[in-house]
Structure formats: structure tokens, C-alpha cells
């Protein structure tokens, strides 16, 4: 349990960077050829062995998930809803990480709690010097005390909420935003709404583009070939 969370802490910044890098790449590519990019986003959920019928079933489920207001069309209102939800999830994630230090469960965090958690999370690396271990603990403590905006040694609810807004505002959010933004480009008749028919037409187009041998089933090789960056 502890080992896994340790690993998570170490990899989280790397993940955030990777996500940011992907988004940067995606944004750049979007400026060049939006339609093709949107189809690539759609194609992320296709799996080898899928038939067109199976893929369309899945696309319908995706459509329903993105249609937050259940008006059977994807509109900018759904885009806004998805963005708000994913921003809320980002903030919730930041708060969850901060609150792991609330060891006594009183809803606020003291420096002492942060130190105790950090010592446990840092552990001891094999053959590590005591000095090095201390430095690692100090780094974790410093990082975890950042929400203490007024530097009084206690992180209270207001600081936790403010810090989460700050952090989530600075970071880019993940895949759900890309999915709705891609979906909104499939507005074939330009009426500002993407209907299920329009969404399915795009999905079918993607399927046919991937199924290059036209046997009605997408293989792993076909998917890999499609996903390979175009030269």
C-alpha cells in the first residue's frame, strides 16, 4: 500500500509533464489540420478485434457520456460542462493529495502531521546516507507545506481550497476535454450541434480509415499503422 503510494508520488510530476507535453503537441497539430486531429482523438478508444458494429456501440456510449444535458446533441454547452467537471476533478485531486496529511482527521493540517507523513512516505533507500534521507524528507515537507499560504504552520480549509484553485488553474486538464473538443468538430451541417448521426458518421469514417484491408475487423497492426505519426 505504502510502496504503491510512494511510487505514485514520484511519478505524478512526470505524468503531469507528460500530459502537458501531449497537450502542447495536440494543440500544435490542431492548428495545422483540425479535422484529421479530431479523428485521431476519436480513434483513441478503438481496440483491436473490434467490428464496425461494436465500435459504433462504443461510440454511442461515448456520445451519451459527453451529452451532459441529455438533449441528444453535443453543443458548446456540453463542452463547457465537461470542462467544468474536469477542472473540478483536477481540484479534487489536488485536495485529495493535500489531505493525506490530515492524520488526525480534523480537516486541517499541521506542520507536524506533514512531517510525520513525509518521513513515512520517504522511507529509506538501500544504503542511503542519513543526510540524503533527511534532504528527501525536507523536500517532501516543503512541497506539502506549499498550501500554507499565510505561513502560520497550519493549512486550513480556506488555504486548501484556494491552493487547489491555483494549481488546477495552472495545469491543463486531461483527455475528457480533448474528447468533447474533437466531437464538436464533427458538425457536418454547421448548425452548432453534433447529433448522434453526425458523431457516428465520423466514427464510421475513422473505422474505415483504420481497417485498411477492408475485412470489417480492425487488427492491432492496422491500429498501430493509423496511430503512427504521419510524416
Amino acid at each position, binding site marked *: *500500500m*505504502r*510502496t504503491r*503510494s510512494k511510487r505514485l508520488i514520484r*511519478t*505524478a510530476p512526470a*505524468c*503531469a509533464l507528460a*500530459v502537458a507535453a501531449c497537450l502542447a503537441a495536440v494543440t500544435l497539430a490542431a492548428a495545422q489540420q483540425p479535422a484529421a486531429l479530431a479523428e485521431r482523438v476519436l480513434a483513441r*478508444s478503438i481496440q483491436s478485434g473490434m467490428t464496425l458494429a461494436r465500435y459504433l456501440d*462504443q461510440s454511442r*456510449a*461515448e456520445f451519451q*457520456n*459527453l451529452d*451532459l444535458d*441529455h438533449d441528444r446533441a453535443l453543443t458548446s454547452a456540453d463542452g463547457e*460542462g465537461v470542462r*467544468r*467537471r*474536469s*477542472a*473540478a*476533478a*483536477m*481540484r*479534487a*485531486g*489536488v*485536495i*485529495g*493529495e493535500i*489531505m*493525506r*496529511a*490530515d*492524520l488526525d*482527521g*480534523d*480537516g486541517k493540517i499541521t506542520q507536524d502531521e506533514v512531517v*510525520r*507523513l513525509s*518521513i*513515512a512516505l520517504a*522511507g*529509506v533507500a*538501500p544504503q542511503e546516507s542519513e543526510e540524503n534521507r533527511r534532504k528527501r524528507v525536507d523536500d517532501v515537507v516543503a512541497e506539502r507545506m506549499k498550501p500554507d499560504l499565510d505561513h502560520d504552520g497550519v493549512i486550513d*480549509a*480556506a488555504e*486548501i*481550497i484556494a491552493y*487547489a*484553485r491555483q494549481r*488546477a488553474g495552472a*495545469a491543463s*486538464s*486531461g*483527455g*475528457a476535454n480533448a*474528447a468533447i473538443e474533437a466531437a464538436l468538430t464533427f458538425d457536418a451541417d454547421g448548425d452548432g450541434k453534433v447529433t448522434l448521426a453526425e458523431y457516428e458518421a465520423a466514427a464510421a469514417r475513422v473505422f474505415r480509415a483504420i481497417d485498411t484491408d477492408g475485412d470489417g475487423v480492425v487488427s492491432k497492426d492496422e491500429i498501430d499503422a493509423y496511430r503512427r505519426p504521419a510524416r
Partner: protein
Amino acid sequence: MKRCACLIAAAAAALTCCTAQAQPRPRTDAIDLSRAVLDPRFMFSVTLLPGMTRDQFLQKRRTEFDEMDVNHDGVVSSADPAAETEIFNATRRAGRLRQILSADVDGDGVVTREDLETFLAGPQAPLVGPIGQVVGFLAGPQARIVGPGLLGQIVGFDRDEVMGFDRNGDGRLDWSELVAWAHAGPDPGINFAMAPRYLVIMAFNDDHDGKTTWAEFRAGVEKFFQSVDTDNDGTLSLEEIEANRQRTGYGPPAELMRALVPPR
């Protein structure tokens, strides 16, 4: 052999006792694990493999000791499982806060009945990644096959259950009410993955002060290694491990070892 069975039974009884005591906020510091021990030969024996040297075996136990010494005071005592349990439960509460706050779309740290209704009307299973970002939404049938772990966790809860924590009935859950909700729910109380390991380490307490030092643990570990390494060459052979199994009843059977370590 009979004695070992007794010890294991005692340990199991102690664990049951701990669970029975678990309240919404368990007083885990009251659990005295130093009185209940598991036969260490069991835990040590299952890690034996042919070709393992004394240094490798010691290093493994050292790593274990450091991991168990959660508060890093140089000894493993009841304070460590208490600290471990405290962190375990805090992490669980933090996970619950993360779930409920996913519904706080305006980010003011307050979840209203309306926030919950909007959230639950949308896709019920946003897929949350390791740093809390939503990486996608899953539809019903797919939601079942993705559990916590690699991809993240499924968010979902019941509106009426949550609003039951609106103590002052204003239709809003403020921070203290959200924290109260985080405390609710099945409380694991004790990390069962860790408990047996503490029971083993507590066996190495020669001076009966309730604290196991690395020196005490190391002495026991070396004695055990020597009892298996009968030709005293510092490396365990398949035959020695098999003989240990015949003697103590613990450890991997020869055919399993042969499967795990191909003969050189």
C-alpha cells in the same frame, strides 16, 4: 509445530480483536502488537531461494525493517503500526474527499445539493487519473471492468446518503460536513497487508521492552540463516532449503524452487 499453531492462533485472535475494536475513529495506538507474534521462521522461509547469500538475505530484512519503522525512530514498536494505520486511514479519507469534491464545479469547497444533482446527471463514472485529472468517461458496462489501480478510480456515490451529512439542513455541505462524510463509510482500521509483518518483527524483542531494534532483529535473522545454511558456506542450496522445510514445515517445496530457479 504445535507451539507454532498456537502462536498463529494467538495472532489471529489478536487481529480479530483489533478489528472488533475498530470504531469510526479507531484508537489504534491502544493496540499492543508486542504481545502477539507470528513464528518468524514462517515468513523468513517463504522468501528463501537457492543461491541466496547471507548478505542478500540480510539486506532484504534490513529493507523490511526500515519499511516497518514508519516513524523512523530506529526501533519497531507498537507506535509504528499505529502510525501506519493513521496514514492508511487518512489516505482513505483523502480519497473520499477527492470523490465528493469532484462535484464541486465552482471550486468554492462547498458541495450543494444542486452540485450533486448536476454531477450525478452526467456520466456517472469519470475516470480519474493518478494526479486527479479526468482522463475520460466510462459508460456503464465498461465501468465494471476498470477498477482502482492502473488507470485511476471510478467516482460514484449516492446523493441522499451524502446529503444526510448536511447536519444544519441548509442544502450545502461545507468543509466540516465534507470531512465528516469522509470519516463515514467502512473504516478498514488496520492495514491487513502490514499486520502479519509487524507480528513477525515483534518476535525479536529479547529484552521484552516492546521495541525491536535492528541489532535484535539482525541477530535473529542471522541465527535463522545459519540454521538453514548447514554447510556454513554463506549461500543457500536447494537441498538446504528443502531440509529446512522438512525440519520446520515452512518454505517452498523443492519442485517450486526448481520451477522458479532453473538449474545452472
